[in-house]
């Protein structure tokens, strides 16, 4: 709810002008009434209308600036006739009126050009820019008329109001890393794969990785779903990365990396996983010296030692990693476990520290007799470390030594547990069972349909609505069997969330050799110096404000799973990218600040960009999403070959052509 003077946002029409305060109607949207701390905003204008917060707003100037912004931002587009010339004319005509030189014919021309842009522009930016301008011309007609009749400048034509704009899209907004998705898809459509990759890497250095194992929240905010099915956004990301790798081309950086600054400033990054790598990349691109400290012998974090080879081939991930380490100011220290003493040293030696050490402690399942010493009790993280270090790096020993011909029970329901069971299959386990408290639908929602489906195909037995009550061992403390409770979902009579209720008398036992808890992981906070008194969240992760990622201790930042709790790669990337940006300024001015782009990013997130009820115009419905080929069960079950072959060239082009380029411009007058 927002208190506004006027709004046409998303079909609402609120006009509180000339009404006493008590009769004001509130808008149902969360507009950025306050732009930044102590900085009120005067109006918000965007793809879906306009909202005015200040009664003295200059509507003519606002419209002109919005059109100007479209001009300025048209590097995001500017590739169709109506958008390119139409946008220019829109601005020229509006500015003519605003500076007191317009006439009523100009108004007519504006309306006509707007119509053409709205009907035929290539992307939504061109189709939507005229909308709020037409709204202003209609509802603030008197201001336009005054400029024309009196041939005078609009009242704030020369004022020092700032107009801050940002280009977004529903998918970009939903993506935690705010990847410029329409741009990289356009690169595929144009068969300009290098350009596609550059677009991705503006905010996402791990293109191979997030072209394979991202849970793609963006696809839930894809406007194409309003028409038929969402675009295969994630898989299209692979094209650019594969192009660079397959042809062994020079790195496609989003911009020319700046030369090393050599100014004595340096940043320590604790943890070489997705978050650490991302921060290193964006700091490195700026020429800032960074040092990554990684406990394991290899870089990559959980994606390297957690995500199995068949889902994320290490050769590909290594390319993403090499991209980062190829930067001259990025230094890597593997086999280096950071502890409290080292952190104390870092505090003296470095200008900023980024904690990005993830969550590598497996949580317990809270069963009776649950102890780490039990033979056959194997934490998911340790088990996956063992599998992956062996298969990908030939470090250690194969897990098949333990798992071959054994019965393995995994308790979980998230991605990690899927990795556990599917790896166990490949290590030759006789039988693999997944125990999950809730139902099939939830497991699919928590992971993905593909992941679940593929695990079933590979022979994993899923037992839903069940949980281990007790672990039963023999005299040698060897795991023998599990006592399992059954649950059912009981609807809440008050209409709340259904509750899981134990079914009495339905307990059963499973004989097994291994129990692998994979319910969740937690951060190893023991490395933090006590005297730093770093504030924690209620679920024991490092507390930040979720905007600038600085912890309660100045100069110490946190990003990724150790900040958020076990979450996705793309979430870690998004946080680390933001943290790197804040750090790049902090090490020089000691201040924690966000760019206008970042402030707007957060405002839009709050307002929400995707509208699932919007009716789509101008696109042919019923064109199905392209589906990539997967290895058949027999082709994949005994090996670690990548299961998803990715879209073929033809499929990728067809899929890219389905993208509606839903770019929007939002602007705030401050």
């Amino acid at each position: 709810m927002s208190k506004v003077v006027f709004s046409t946002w998303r079909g609402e029409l609120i006009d509180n002008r000339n009404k006493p305060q008590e009769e004001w109607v509130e808008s149902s949207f969360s507009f950025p009434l306050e732009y930044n701390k102590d900085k009120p905003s005067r109006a918000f204008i965007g793809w879906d209308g306009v909202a005015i917060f200040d009664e003295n707003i200059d509507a003519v100037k606002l419209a002109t600036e919005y059109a100007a912004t479209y001009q300025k931002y048209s590097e995001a587009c500017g590739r169709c006739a109506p958008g390119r010339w139409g946008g220019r004319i829109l601005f020229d005509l509006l500015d003519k009126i605003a500076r007191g030189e317009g006439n009523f014919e100009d108004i007519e021309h504006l309306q006509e050009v707007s119509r053409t842009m709205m009907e035929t522009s290539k992307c939504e930016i061109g189709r939507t820019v005229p909308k709020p301008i037409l709204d202003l011309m209609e509802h603030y007609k008197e201001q336009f008329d005054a400029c024309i009749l009196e041939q005078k400048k609009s009242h704030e034509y020369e004022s020092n109001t700032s107009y801050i704009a940002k280009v977004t899209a529903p998918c970009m907004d939903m993506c935690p890393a705010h990847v410029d998705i329409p741009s990289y898809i356009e690169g595929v459509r144009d068969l300009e794969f290098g350009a596609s990759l550059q677009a991705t890497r503006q905010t996402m250095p791990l293109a191979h990785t997030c072209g394979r194992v991202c849970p793609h929240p963006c696809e839930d905010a894809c406007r194409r779903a309003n028409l038929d099915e969402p675009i295969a956004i994630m898989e299209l990301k692979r094209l650019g990365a594969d192009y660079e790798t397959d042809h062994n081309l020079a790195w496609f950086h989003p911009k020319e990396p700046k030369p090393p600054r050599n100014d004595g400033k340096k940043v320590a990054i604790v943890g070489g996983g997705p978050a650490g790598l991302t921060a290193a990349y964006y700091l490195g691109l700026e020429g800032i010296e960074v040092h990554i400290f990684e406990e394991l012998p290899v870089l990559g974090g959980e994606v390297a030692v957690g995500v199995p080879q068949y889902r994320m081939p290490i050769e590909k991930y290594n390319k993403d990693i090499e991209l980062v380490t190829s930067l001259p100011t990025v230094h890597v220290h593997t086999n280096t476990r950071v502890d409290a003493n080292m952190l104390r040293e870092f505090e003296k030696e470095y200008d900023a520290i980024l904690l990005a050490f993830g969550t590598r402690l497996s949580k317990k399942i809270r069963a009776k007799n649950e102890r780490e010493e039990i033979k056959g009790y194997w934490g998911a993280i340790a088990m996956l470390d063992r599998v992956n270090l062996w298969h990908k790096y030939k470090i250690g020993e194969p897990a098949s030594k333990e798992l071959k011909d054994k019965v393995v029970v995994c308790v979980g329901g998230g991605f990690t547990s899927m990795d556990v069971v599917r790896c166990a299959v490949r290590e030759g386990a006789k039988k693999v069972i997944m125990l999950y408290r809730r139902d099939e639908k939830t497991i699919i929602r928590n992971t993905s349909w593909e992941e679940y489906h593929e695990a079933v195909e590979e022979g994993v037995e899923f037992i839903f609505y069940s949980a281990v009550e007790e672990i039963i061992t023999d005299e040698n403390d060897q795991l023998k069997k599990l006592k399992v409770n059954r649950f059912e979902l009981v609807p809440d009579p008050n209409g709340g969330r259904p509750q899981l209720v134990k079914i009495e008398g339905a307990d059963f036992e499973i004989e097994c050799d291994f129990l692998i808890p994979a319910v969740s992981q937690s951060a190893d906070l023991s490395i933090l110096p006590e005297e730093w008194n770093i504030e924690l969240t209620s679920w024991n992760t490092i507390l930040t404000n979720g905007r600038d990622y600085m912890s309660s201790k100045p100069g110490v930042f946190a990003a990724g799973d150790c900040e958020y709790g076990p979450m996705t790669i793309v979430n870690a990337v998004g946080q680390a990218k933001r943290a790197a940006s804040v750090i790049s300024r902090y090490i020089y001015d000691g201040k924690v600040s966000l760019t206008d782009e970042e402030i707007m990013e957060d405002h839009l997130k709050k307002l929400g960009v995707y509208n699932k009820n919007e009716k789509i115009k101008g696109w042919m419905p019923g064109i199905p999403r392209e589906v990539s080929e997967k290895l058949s069960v027999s082709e994949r079950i005994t090996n670690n070959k990548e299961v998803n072959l990715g879209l073929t060239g033809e499929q990728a082009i067809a899929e890219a052509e389905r993208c509606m380029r839903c770019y929007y411009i939002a602007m705030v007058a401050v």
Partner: protein
Amino acid sequence: MSAVKETKKTITITIDGKEIQAEYGKSILQIARENGIYIPTMCYLTKVEPIASCRMCVVEVEGVDGFVLSCQEKAVDGAKITTNSQALFRERQNIMKLYDVNHPLECGVCDKSGECDLQNKTLEFEVDEQDFTAKEMHRPVQNWGFISYDPSLCILCEKCVRVCNEIVGSEQLQISVGGYKSTIVNTKPDNDCVSCGECMAVCPVGALVSSDFKYSSNAWELEKIPSACAMCSAGCQLYYEVKHTSIDNPEPKIYRVTNEFEFSNLCGAGRFGFDFENKTAFKDSRKLEEAIKAFKKADTIAFSSYISNEEALLLSKIAKKVGAKLVCSDSYGLSRFLKAYSSVSGKMLWDGTLEDIATSDVIISFGGKIAQDAPMVKNHIAMASKRNKARVIYMHPIEDYTIQNLVTRFIKYEAGSEEGVLAMLLEFLTRDKELDSKIKAFIDELDIGYLSAESSVSEEEIESLKLDFWKRKRFSLIIGSDIFNHERVENIAKIIALIEKYTNFKLIVIPPASNSLGVSLICDLEKEKEGFVVGVNAPGDFTLSSLGDGDFDLPAFNQIEGTITTINKQVVPLNVALPYDGYILNDIAKELGVGSDLTIDLTKELPKEKGFESIEFDELSPNAFSVHGEDLRGYKLRNVTVEVNFELEEVADLESFDGTIVYCVNPSQNPNPFTNKSHLLQSKATLIGSKQFATAAKINDGDRVEFEMDGKKVTRVFRIDTSLKGTIALNPIFDMGLSAFWVSSYRFKKVNINKVGSGDE
């Protein structure tokens, strides 16, 4: 997911009330065009993926809000489409109004006037006044080699960018997006452009024009003579555009070359190397007498492949009549190859075509410097790379980094080791195949370790092809011209035929020169010259030359009627663009009693047993493309069945190629002495080598060097190219006149390089 209708292979749609059956996957525009229904476009180019920048092609679909983009949107079953209505007309008119904003009113002097899409559509959509304007910007004209770019005339349809990327694969042109400031940029204006002029050909307005042609003629004054480019074996369609030279000179002149750019391509040699005609000739009966005398006493008729099928047949007849041998050094290797190939494959020719390359997802290019030797083959590789993410394995002694964006794996082998490398490939590709015992014995006897060591191709490299082939479906094997003059060409041909036979690779063989394939099929060639030699576009004791520098003049390819045989095994017609005033080969043949009324009377006599058809020249299909883009020119050779009868020889020991080696290769836009006669392409050849080569040969950049090639001394200025590696230098031969056709040995040559001076001397 319920919103998605099940996709069927065949769909039924209605366009403007007409019910149409079509294949699912095609765009609305494609289906409309196939059915003769007009939808206006400004940016649509049939040969590339839809660009979708102009928005003119919007249509209405029943039940769908707003206008739908017909070039990109697939038709779905049951769609009811309207291509024209008042509302659509108004929108298209508005788009044209926008295109016309500030477009300079200089049609009077614009080269494009009369064939300009902007002009046509402005008239079609009745834009006769300008309602809006925008502030004009300074947009200076740029010169890109042979091409001039005027950004103020550019409508940013992006066709040029598309062809440069998707067809040519050089990724030279890009759109610099910036709204009103958007422009096309040439990212490498000074180097690396292959100067093919594709961008210019597809430009719908006057933004990209030939600097040479600029301001020289109105489009409508030029007569279009349809013909084929005979500068290499691709035989691309082209039009010679002809008009009188000037007000006081009525002699016709070729002003430029254009082509059916909507469907087909042309490289720089064809587009810019058009004025190679022989102007000096006149009917000199004394010279005719001399020529007849020369032929009568000839022991050998030596000729080059720059000859039509009919002339080749004529030479055969003359040779038979006067009892001379026929020697054609640039086709002899191919003829040996074909005989050996046929003995294994049981057919006269390979099955693959350029189009097969473009639709492949795995391509092996073997034994040729494709980007220079065969620009059209390279273009089709580019299409496969861009559209199908094709794995492109480039096997050659010289890694060509200029096409790294197309190649996914370089496999470098030692010069001379082709036979061994192909044998390794055959062994690898037929491992799980049921083989004839003879072939199995051959493979079993291969000493892979030895072959690998001598060729420098590791077994791992060959094994790694497994990754490239994994889950791929359409395979092409391209054989370049290095092998034709290899001593072991016969056994090489047999190995290639076996690969074709036992794998799903489509084979494409690149004939080494213009009409090598025609010559190989029509003439019985011998290797060595002897006695008195009459040279026909080749050096001889008596020389007939289309370059105008021999003892007797012959017309050039733009002055004759006849046919040539292309890489696609297609017999395509050439037409007369410019008159020729002298005597021709047929005049000599007539005097010798083997001529016909006209040279083209022989078109129907081309040997049917080799797959030619008995069709009169004038009855060959129209020299054009259909409106749907089918190449209608001439006809395709029948692939004749041949008796299978062969012996495989053991792979010969590999001769070592140490020290300084030169490789004969011409630049793509200047492939032979004829293009080098044209005023735009004429240039001086230099020997280009790596730093290592310079060190090995003890020479420096700019030195004048001398070396011997096939018994002839060659002098060249040497230049270092840092992108090259190894001790192989590139030696062009386009500037050697007809003696270029003496070069008949294997393309890699061990030479001694002697410094004879510095470049300025």
